[in-house]
């Protein structure tokens, strides 16, 4: 009886040891070019990921890598990722996140530099060419590349030619001063609000505010991003920033639809599509087939034009922050390699072109050769605006500190105060003081 017990115990210990052995060999991932056969990735539950995850069969067939896509609701993915980053989670090999938070991603989770992977010929995916990728500056932190962009970022203006013509405007506005003048003319002469952009705190009004703001805060290579000076001093109360805030207030209080302070991206594009606003300023991917080829009988049929507001100087003025695909450094090397292969596959011109045609969403053109070619069904002025934005991208738009996100806290409040009538200079001083306090606490601003 006792012998039987000892034998059973030995067998159990043996099984445990062998199990531990196999798991540790899995964790080490074998050689540096070994590739895992199964990875889990964290993505948003957005439509383009639905497309991508349903078109991974050729990738699995070619590489033998099975991909489990954990599609997380977009409203909660950043919270989930932040918690996972703090915990150094190894639940996912690849994840997507906004490049504006790259310093947080790398600071908390750690980052996997991509250049050594690019150099490995054993890991190369046919058709992928890193030098053809746009917006790589946004995927870099202190000169090191950590991600591949998911889509082309930037904000552009969609305008309704018919409404502009009714107000006597024949050429589309080129600059923000002209946008204000034209919006004002449309509002007064037609009774239709001339301008719309998301103004809700819940709808990230800060995103489009930042894009406009960057036109008025002169770019300098010495700055820590587009809104912070070389010594980590906030530029949010600088004359340029206040000038922008004043213009923004005029647009949002006089020329935008009533209640724009609670408008999300969707509210503005709906109003635009229904002919209830003359201009909509928002992210490039906001505009799709509904605006490119509006249905016959639609209020905007044959009336839509696109324009990127022109930079005021020859310096770049676009603080782009597309979402990117990052590798989790806390998974074994073979999983990192498999994730890198997947990232390349999703960024190849062939996949990129097929995706854009299938979804009629040219904002996904992360490959320059795809963006430069004519895309069926997409107006040329949209592609020109897209190209202008990409050509004027600020090289390192966001302060390289994990405290960056926190430094925006008071600016978010200031934006809604501006929409509610607070003096722009007062609101922007509040924002600047808040930003200074955060960077001072972080030991960056002396």
């Amino acid at each position, binding site marked *: 009886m006792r012998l039987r017990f000892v034998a059973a115990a030995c067998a159990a210990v043996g099984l445990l040891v062998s199990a531990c052995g196999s798991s540790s060999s899995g964790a080490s991932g074998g050689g540096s070019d070994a590739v895992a056969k199964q990875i889990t990735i964290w993505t948003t539950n957005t439509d383009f990921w639905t497309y991508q995850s349903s078109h991974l069969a050729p990738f699995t067939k070619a590489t033998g890598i099975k991909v489990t896509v954990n599609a997380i609701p977009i*409203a909660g993915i*950043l*919270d989930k990722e*932040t*918690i996972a980053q*703090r915990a150094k989670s190894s639940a996912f090999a690849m994840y997507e996140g906004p490049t504006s938070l790259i310093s*947080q991603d790398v600071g*908390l989770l750690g980052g996997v530099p991509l250049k050594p992977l690019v150099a490995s010929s054993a890991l190369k995916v046919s058709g992928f060419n890193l030098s053809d990728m746009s917006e790589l500056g946004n995927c870099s932190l202190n000169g090191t590349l950590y991600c591949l962009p998911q889509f082309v970022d930037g904000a552009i203006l969609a305008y309704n030619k018919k409404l502009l013509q009714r107000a006597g405007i024949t050429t589309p506005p080129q600059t923000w001063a002209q946008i204000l003048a034209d919006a004002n003319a449309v509002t007064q002469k037609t009774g239709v609000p001339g301008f719309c952009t998301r*103004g*809700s*705190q*819940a*709808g990230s009004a800060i995103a489009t505010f930042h894009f406009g703001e960057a036109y008025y805060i002169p770019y300098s290579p010495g700055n820590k991003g587009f809104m912070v000076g070389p010594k980590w001093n906030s530029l949010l109360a600088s004359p340029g920033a206040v000038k922008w805030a004043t213009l923004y207030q005029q647009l949002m209080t006089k020329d935008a*639809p*009533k*209640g*724009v*302070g*609670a*408008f999300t991206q969707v*509210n503005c594009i*709906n*109003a635009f599509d229904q002919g*209830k606003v003359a201009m909509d300023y928002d992210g490039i991917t906001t505009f799709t087939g509904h605006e490119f080829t509006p249905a016959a009988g639609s209020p905007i049929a044959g009336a839509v034009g696109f324009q990127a507001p022109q930079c005021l100087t020859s310096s770049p003025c676009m603080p782009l922050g597309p979402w990117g695909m990052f590798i989790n450094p806390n998974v074994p090397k073979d999983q990192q390699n498999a994730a890198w292969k997947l990232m390349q596959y999703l960024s190849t011109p062939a996949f990129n072109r097929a995706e854009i045609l299938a979804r009629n969403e040219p904002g996904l053109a992360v490959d320059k050769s795809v963006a430069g070619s004519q895309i069926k069904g997409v107006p040329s002025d949209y592609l020109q605006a897209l190209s202008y934005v990409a050509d004027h991208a600020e090289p390192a738009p966001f302060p390289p*500190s*994990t*405290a960056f*996100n*926190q430094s925006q*806290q008071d600016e*978010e*409040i200031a934006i*809604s*105060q501006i*929409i*509610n009538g607070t003096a722009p200079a007062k609101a922007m001083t509040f924002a600047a003081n808040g930003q200074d306090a955060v960077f001072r*606490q*972080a*030991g960056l601003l002396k």
Partner: protein
Amino acid sequence: MSGQLGLEGPGTQPGLLDRASRRSAGPAGDRGPIRPGPARQIALRGWSAFDRKFFRLAAIPAFLAVFLVTVIPFLAGFGLSFSSMNSVHNHVFPPTLANYKTIITDPVTHTVLLNTVIYVVAAVVLETGFGLLLGVLLASKHRFVSGFRVIFLLPLTVAGVAAAISWSALLNTSQGWVNYYLGLLHLPQPNWLASSSAAMPSVIITDMWSGVPVVAVIVLAALIGAPRDPIEAAMVDGASAWNRFRYVTFPAIRPALVLAALLRTVAAFQQFALFEILTGGGPGLSTTVINFYVYQQTIVYGNVGYGAALAVLLVLVMAVPLLILFALSRRR
């Protein structure tokens, strides 16, 4: 067996009857502290030693679960509130009182606290009041009352996030149905969610939509379960409808009403979806309440230590109305 365990049957009932008879014994019985001890002892009376041991062993997993998911996180949170863990320092040590100092000195936190008090008091008072009214109406004998009950209790079946998204669309100033119909009636069309003066009332109204039926259903259950004899006796004595309600019905349903207010108070402090979806805490800080602020500080801005200190403050703030309501529930 059931009798032995004291879950039902003679083991339990005498205890309950004992307490009831002591309550009605007069002022002396009323003033005495209510201690759970004797009742439990009565409930356990007659149990064998094995049963008692089994009872204690069987309770261990539940206590362990509560300990793991409540006590440990609370202690961890309390500990974190003394840390300087934030977006720059991902370390717990060294301990500091800075977070609590910030709570005292930061005007933003004071605004957030005031918003919380306004929201909780307004939501609980209005929901309890309207819920009582609705519950009484739904308890009345009317041909169509069953239909009305279904209609008025429907919001209980709707998920909070779905309700918030729907209300966000309804209250949209220039695209929402509410202002559309107000416009047809030539009535003012408020800037529901975008104006700092209207945003908080809008959130409270939205909260009432789902909160009033909760109170109503509790009141309805209490009214249905209340004894009819005293009411009928009061009717025979010629008491008016108001007096019957004031002196007979209301005392009978008061414990249920206090329970409803208690539940709504906890729910109001917990409310997150409405603030996140309807206003994002804005415009400015006008709808930022402490629960939402804890989330913003901890998760969005990475101020884990400060967020934990705010969470401790939230527990303390919650304790005040809950203690008052508990005290009210003991009054007779």
